[in-house]
């Protein structure tokens, strides 16, 4: 049958490697390699999901295909790094942060190798692919590991800036990325520094602290609330570790409520990190942690899940309004 297929039909691999945040990954790595940085990249049978196929086409000799063996990939990345290369290895966040947890601790973090781990499709962004493919524990897990920097960029521009900044970052890094289709939050040249939160305002009533995929909806919710006359602020806590304690405490000093928002369990992730700082400093504000409430997430198309878990702009606005009432 040689008739061409209907334009409405599509193959995932063709489509997804063009997803904005993810093509950012490949494009930025290509640019860095062109500038002379010793970048190598690896993928475990997901080069179309993470867009690294672009890098692989441009630098085939610097791309390593590991097949479906994530643990081997992570340990090998550490070995690669010992030779002076800077490996970026990527796979679904659930398989990276959970399946390779011990390899990340021992071979990457403990051996202090400058490996960059890209956990993509984190949170519930894999929708109906199943709870097995959701990663709502990865921030808690990665945060428990010493000497590992943990970052969840809000959009493609911030991701690109973070990758660029990583070239001069001495520690290994876990990057947490979503589906790669994040709406734009930042201009291309917004500065980025690990561990320095971006404060979009402090509210007298509520300051929202959001990370990664939750920043954009939280920003929309904040604007809607402000438009309704509420004093609400927002902090983009792109670096979960080391946490910008100053930013947290500044907000906790002025706001009545700190509302953390993350596409993650409310245990031990962003909410947990903020709780530690607040409790340790006897902060005045009350903390409310919004996210997945310590349960296994349901399946559904991603947007339906965001709605269900109130992680879309409307949901965050509802949660905040209930607190203001």
């Amino acid at each position, binding site marked *: *049958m040689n*008739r061409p*297929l*209907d*334009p*409405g*039909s*599509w*193959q*995932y*691999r*063709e489509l997804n490697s063009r997803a904005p945040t993810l093509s950012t990954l490949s494009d930025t790595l290509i640019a860095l390699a062109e500038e002379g940085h010793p970048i190598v990249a690896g*993928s475990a*049978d*997901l*080069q*179309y*999901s993470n867009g690294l*196929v672009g890098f692989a086409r441009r630098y085939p000799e610097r791309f390593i*295909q*590991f*097949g*479906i*063996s994530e*643990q*081997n990939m992570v340990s090998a990345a550490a070995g690669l790094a010992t030779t002076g290369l800077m490996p970026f290895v990527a796979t679904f966040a*659930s*398989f990276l942060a959970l*399946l390779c947890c011990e390899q990340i601790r021992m071979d990457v973090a403990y051996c202090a190798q400058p490996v960059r781990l890209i956990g993509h499709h984190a949170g519930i962004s894999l*929708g*109906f*692919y*199943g*709870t*097995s*493919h959701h990663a709502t524990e990865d921030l808690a897990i990665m945060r428990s590991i010493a000497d590992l920097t943990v970052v969840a960029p809000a959009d493609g521009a911030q991701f690109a800036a973070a990758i660029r900044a990583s070239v001069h970052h001495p520690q290994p890094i876990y990057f947490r990325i979503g589906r790669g289709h994040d709406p734009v939050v930042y201009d291309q040249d917004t500065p980025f520094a690990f561990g320095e939160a971006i404060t979009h305002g402090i509210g007298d009533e509520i300051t929202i602290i959001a990370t990664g995929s939750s920043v954009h909806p939280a920003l929309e919710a904040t604007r809607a609330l402000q438009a309704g006359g509420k004093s609400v602020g927002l902090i983009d806590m792109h670096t979960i570790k080391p946490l910008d304690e100053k930013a947290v405490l500044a907000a906790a000093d002025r706001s009545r409520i700190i509302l953390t928002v993350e596409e993650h369990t409310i245990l031990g992730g962003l909410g947990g990190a903020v709780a530690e700082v607040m409790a340790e400093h006897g902060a005045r504000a009350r903390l409310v942690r919004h996210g997945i409430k310590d349960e296994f997430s*349901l*399946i*559904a*198309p991603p947007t*339906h*899940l965001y709605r*269900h878990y109130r992680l879309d702009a409307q949901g965050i606005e509802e949660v905040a309004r209930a607190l203001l009432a």
Partner: protein
Amino acid sequence: MAAEAGDRAYEGAGPPFILGYHPLEHGRNSMNTTLTQDEITRLEERARFIRLETIRLISIAKVGHYSSAFSAAEIFATLYYDTMRIRRDEPAWIDRDRFLMGKGHAAVALFPVLADLGFFPKAWLDQYTRLGSPLGDHPDMRKVPGVDFSSGSIGHALSAGLGMALGARILKRDFRTFVMLGDGEMQEGQVWEAALAAANHGLSRLIAIIDRNGFQLDGRVDDTMAIEPLREKWEAFGWDVSDVDGHDVVSVAECLRRLRDDERRAKPACVIAHTIKGKGVSYMETEPGWHLGYLAPADEARAIEEIMAGAAR
């Protein structure tokens, strides 16, 4: 269109499907391994039903693993309508044979079978992947009656099946445990941990079936991380190995009957089912991009046509 395909598929099922094996619940070794023409026709019909339902369900989800389901259609059909000892309407029967999928992403082909067997209402299928539905891209034992184990993360299933086979031995139950694995799945180390353990424990009632369709997500298995010589690997890990044409129900069913009933074998058994990824739909058969995708209605119709025509062949 989708509904039509679905209806047609279930019409094909006719009155409650008469199972060749299940009525003999208690007897093993009680049937010979040769299939009758009637049985062959039925299994082929069920494989077609599985393909058509796969298309229908993916048309609801708007994205799915057509080709991973198609390569395994005859295997699913043979297992559930010939090989396995199960009770219609009693998914949790304690003595049932167990089935696990390492390649859980082909669950779209399993759900129609479980519904057909009466394990849950067929109406559930219409909600495939919707919020609140138990049916998603991967099988979930906590939500779906008849699913013996959940999967999604490739590489765990043989270990879980090993546990079931060990459990059967400890509890002195004679059920068999069948585990379907992808060929890309051979790259996961845990598979080899389980393989080694199964051979050490002499779990002859554990049967692995490898869907050797030659492709994984990033492309050909040979280009991604080649796994040959596959027979030698399994033999070196202490397994009995058979090769079958995975699209020939006679070959599959006779092999599985034989392995199921052979009580002299001391080793676990591995079946390398040689298959074609996307089997039944010409434009999927060699195109790796179809590991995951979506067919617009016009192409869906063509796929259905081809599947029906293939059946007539």
